[in-house]
């Protein structure tokens, strides 16, 4: 027993010796519920949690859990230190006026970041409080909510730099007003489960640099059933319209299941665009050609483009005079072999090309795709294209014809990286891993400095989409 107690003495409580500033920093990473538990560790820790700059409350429901409401109430009423971050998560709020009073307290304490998560219950209509709109210290606002409304005072969001909104079935009025007057906003993300109530989104932000929009479930509302009158064309609902006035916009990230109309006041400042049209049949819609062409024209100035879209036709593509990096993400049945030559022809400055093929077959006629060799070698292949990355390679004949052409025609290629598909069944239809490697190595190389590398493919889970 003697040696045991000696061991206890030797094992020191080093953590409590850390300076106050560090202990407070540790506690700042804890949700307030856990931070409070820290207060009974020892006397040293008792007061520490109250100095945490962050308040983070989460509770399942406010209705029957009086304890939760009392706890939040007490913490906020006794607080007189400024708050850096206020986070509140509860999916069953009941009385929003309580929450609003807490937000007002946070605003009074010069909160810099507010993060609200009310879940996706559409029946709970949340009205964003005025105090948030006029808060001078607020730089970051994140909101997850069902329908939101507001009657914003002007001017609004005087210091807001980052706005993330994740909304379920928002109404049209809020989408026209919420983002239309943000004087210093730099980063805007909108994620929305779209119903049929919203048609127009208005974004007006003179300092905006990054705009991300992720609309889902738009597709299910996109088709009305045809009327009994057979002569009448099917009644398609209008696509959604984005009116964007953001003269400093650099990065555009669109992820949506049907293609909306994007109207830019000007888009010359755009440097990077990521366009991901997830729905398969969106190209069958009559307005698709027009929307696609307009969107491509709007991003024609970018240096870096990533595109995932089915049935994009050559005629949608403008000249991409500045394009230096291009990524094309395609499913098995998309017409990559027709589109790639067009992209190459229109991108004289292209230095890096990534072709990312999904391991997902939709069962369409894969025989329709034929690699069509460009009549004239595209300029970028002769003098600019240095790196090519091929992902999800399975060894299909047309695919290999395309790869062979790129290797032969690319006169300044330095690195070609090949990542073979992880879908063994798909691969075995055409070849083996070793067989593919041999084939690639046997291709004639147009560039003396070209090296072909093989890397392991990453298994892409469906949810990674």
């Amino acid at each position, binding site marked *: 027993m003697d040696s045991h107690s000696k061991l206890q003495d030797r*094992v*020191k*409580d*080093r*953590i*409590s010796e*850390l*300076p106050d*500033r*560090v202990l407070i*920093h*540790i*506690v*700042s*990473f*804890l*949700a*307030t*519920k*856990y931070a*409070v*538990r*820290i*207060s*009974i*560790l*020892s*006397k040293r*820790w*008792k007061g520490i949690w109250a100095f945490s700059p962050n308040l983070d409350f989460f509770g399942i429901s406010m209705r029957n*859990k009086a*304890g*939760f409401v*009392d*706890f939040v109430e*007490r913490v906020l009423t006794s607080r007189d230190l400024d708050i850096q971050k206020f986070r509140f998560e509860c999916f069953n709020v009941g009385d929003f006026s309580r929450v609003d009073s807490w937000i007002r307290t946070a605003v009074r304490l010069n909160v810099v970041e507010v993060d609200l998560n009310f879940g996706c219950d559409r029946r709970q209509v949340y009205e964003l409080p005025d105090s948030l709109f006029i808060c001078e210290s607020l730089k970051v606002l994140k909101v997850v909510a069902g329908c939101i409304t507001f009657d914003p005072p002007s001017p609004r969001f005087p210091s807001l730099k980052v706005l993330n909104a994740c909304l379920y079935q928002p109404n049209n009025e809020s989408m026209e007003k919420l983002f239309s007057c943000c004087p210093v906003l730099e980063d805007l993300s909108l994620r929305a489960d779209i119903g049929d109530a919203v048609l127009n989104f208005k974004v007006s932000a003179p300092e905006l640099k990054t705009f991300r929009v992720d609309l889902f479930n738009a597709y299910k509302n996109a088709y009305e059933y045809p009327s009994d009158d057979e002569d009448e064309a099917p009644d398609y609902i209008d696509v959604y319209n984005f009116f964007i006035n953001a003269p400093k916009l650099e990065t555009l990230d669109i992820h949506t299941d049907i293609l909306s109309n994007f109207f830019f006041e000007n888009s010359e400042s755009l440097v990077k665009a990521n366009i991901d049209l997830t729905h398969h049949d969106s190209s069958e819609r009559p307005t698709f050609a027009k929307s696609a062409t307009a969107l491509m024209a709007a991003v024609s100035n970018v240096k870096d483009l990533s595109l995932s879209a089915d049935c994009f036709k050559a005629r949608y593509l403008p000249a991409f005079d500045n394009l230096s990096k291009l990524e094309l993400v395609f499913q098995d049945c998309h017409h990559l072999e027709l589109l790639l030559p067009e992209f190459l022809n229109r991108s004289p400055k292209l230095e890096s090309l990534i072709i990312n093929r999904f391991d997902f077959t939709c069962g369409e006629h894969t025989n329709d795709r034929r690699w069509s060799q460009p009549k004239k070698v595209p300029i970028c292949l002769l003098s600019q294209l240095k790196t090519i990355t091929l992902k999800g390679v399975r060894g299909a004949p047309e695919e290999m014809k395309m790869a062979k052409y790129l290797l032969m025609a690319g006169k300044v290629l330095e690195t070609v990286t090949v990542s073979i598909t992880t879908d063994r069944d798909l691969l075995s239809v055409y070849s083996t891993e070793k067989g593919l490697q041999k084939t690639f190595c046997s291709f004639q190389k147009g560039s003396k400095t070209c090296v072909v590398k093989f890397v392991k493919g990453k298994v892409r889970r469906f949810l990674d989409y």
Partner: protein
Amino acid sequence: MSTETKKKLVLHTSDNETFEIEEAVVLQSQAIKHMVEDECADNAIPLPNVTSKTLSKVIEYCKKHAEDSGEEALKAWDADFIKFDTDTLYDVIMAANYLNIKSLLDLTCQRVADMCKGKTPEEIRRTFNIKNDFSPEEEEAVRRENQWAFE
């Protein structure tokens, strides 16, 4: 290609070891950055509060973060890097605080916080060898005051 040799700084630890590191790597420490700006760093920079064992870890972190590996790769590397024993963890926290390396301080403090999450106070005490110096009445009073937090 530039043939200029990268400038190196010399750091001197508490256990009398010297480390010669590229300036760009070490400048992630705001404390050292200020010393360099104030021109106090021509000779070896003494670090009386940091052992060579700890400094190795700090330099390993700074070197990785001076590279351009991409956000995801860096996060994965950090998650692996941070798996030290609690003694080393305290040492690195103290060093990151002393050298003022914000991202390393965040990473290590977050790690301690993660070790506390979801544990009862008694479990946390055991993890960090914290002695409970409350009387039973005092402890009960604190629990009652914020009852919901202990549920």
